[in-house]
């Protein structure tokens, strides 16, 4: 009995969102390209932050620095009080296990089932022998079913990932991130490959996991109307630097012109 309540206590704690703190972070890729230039930013737990900027502005690098997919060349990266820069091996994997990620290209394993793809979200919490045998715990499967249900993809659970449409694949990818029971969800241009109505559906899913589950969400976008509509806070990036930081709803076309370094056109909106 005491054991059960102790476990429940840990789970309640596990759902508490994390903040993100970058302090003087610079990223220089091996080929010499500078991804980030002395970026410092503090994101509160439970925020939904839209990161906007043109391609090559560094917004993708910013998001990948947070879970260590791209190592910071200098400066410190902290999520939920844990250092990401300099972390490696088990410590880095444990931190990544708490951070869900959604990609522009969905990044599902096309030849396997939706369920197996979503169970990838449990990798950090599953012993190697279970993974090798494909014998996931019942609780992990339950988490996968719940996550799929949350994005409306439960009916597709046994289908091959490659058989789904783009929007459905992105929903499955969101379910994969949710199955991690993450404290942060990072989304790198999640709607850039989708048509406008589907894009809105995916953005609504991201907003719901932020509002209903309280998870901190950081989403890269290049369309200003989506950023304005869905973000609570907006960070604008240009040439690896943060050039705008403020509430998303009140961002003006002039602000976007400043971020993009040119005047805003119809192509910068989802609904033209």
């Amino acid at each position, binding site marked *: 009995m005491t054991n059960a309540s102790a476990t429940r206590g840990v789970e309640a704690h596990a759902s508490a969102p994390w903040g993100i703190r970058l302090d003087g972070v610079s990223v220089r890729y091996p080929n010499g390209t500078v991804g980030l230039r002395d970026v410092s930013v503090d994101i509160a737990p439970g925020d939904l932050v839209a990161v906007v900027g043109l391609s090559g502005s560094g917004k993708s690098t910013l998001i990948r620095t947070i879970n260590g997919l791209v190592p910071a060349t200098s400066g410190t990266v902290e999520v939920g009080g844990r250092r990401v820069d300099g972390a490696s091996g088990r410590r880095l994997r444990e931190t990544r296990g708490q951070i869900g990620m959604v*990609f522009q290209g*969905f990044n*599902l394993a096309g*030849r*396997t089932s939706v369920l197996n793809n979503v169970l990838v979200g449990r*990798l950090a919490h599953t012993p190697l022998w279970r993974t090798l045998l494909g014998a996931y715990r019942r609780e992990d499967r339950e988490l996968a079913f719940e996550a799929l249900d949350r994005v409306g993809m439960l009916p597709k659970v046994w289908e091959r990932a490659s058989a789904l449409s783009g929007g459905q694949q992105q929903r499955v990818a969101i379910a994969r991130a949710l199955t991690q029971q993450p404290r942060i969800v990072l989304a790198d241009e999640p709607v850039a490959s989708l048509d406008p109505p589907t894009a809105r559906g995916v953005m609504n899913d991201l907003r719901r996991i932020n509002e209903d589950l309280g998870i901190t969400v950081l989403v890269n976008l290049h369309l200003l109307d989506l950023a304005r509509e869905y973000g609570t806070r907006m960070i604008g990036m240009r040439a690896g630097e943060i050039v705008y930081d403020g509430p998303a709803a009140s961002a003006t076309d002039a602000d976007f012109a400043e971020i993009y370094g040119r005047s805003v056109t119809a192509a910068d909106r989802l609904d033209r």
Partner: protein
Amino acid sequence: MTALTVPPRPKGRWMPWTAAAVIVAVTVVMCLPGFGVGLDIAAIARNWQQGAVRIVELLAPDWSFFPRTVGPLLETLQMAVIGTAVGAAISLPLSFWAARPTNPVGWTRAVLRGILNVVRAVPELVYAAVLVAIVGVGALPGIIALVLFNVGIVVKLVSETIDSSDVGPLEAGRAAGGTQSKINRSIALPDAWPAFVSQTLYVFELNVRASTVLGLVGAGGIGLLIDAVRTFYRYDQLSLIIVEILVIVVVLDTVSDAIRRRLV
């Protein structure tokens, strides 16, 4: 009507012709006696009567020989099946080890690929001959020879498939906090599986063919019998064995084709 301005055609049209001329010239030089292999086409004309007798013998298989061929034929098939299964079991993990997306540690990849290049350079008949001297006459040296031959081929082809596959899904596994082994199992394996099964079926067909001749060096199977009947000039019995091998190969080709179609 204005004439269209077609850009000038690029130079280099003579290339295929030159290449063909070079190949023909090299082949002719290699056939010359003294310099090349000294091909004596007249030998065919001189010996044609002998050849005709052999061909007539080959056209009349000795069906009464069938019972004696059953045992060695089964052994040949068993060697091929065991060699393929063991080879596949070894090849699967090694394929991930040899590919860049599934093994980020460069030097281990280089070492494995180096070893596999050496393994592939030796023909399976040479393996069998050497192994017969080490472990003795029988099916065992034949099976080990097949395994070495299979691992060399399957790991190369499957790891190349993995190398050219999309790394995005693997990155998603890394972002979720998986170790490389877990990522390989849950994400890379499903995508590499059709290539792996297809290559394994392919080497199984090769194994059936190869294990018919391994007996020539004493490594088990029908090859031993082939050697015996050939030594006694029993071309009618050799003919029966050839027909049997032909039937087996055709059946296996059909079956593996059907499996492959279901797979992709």
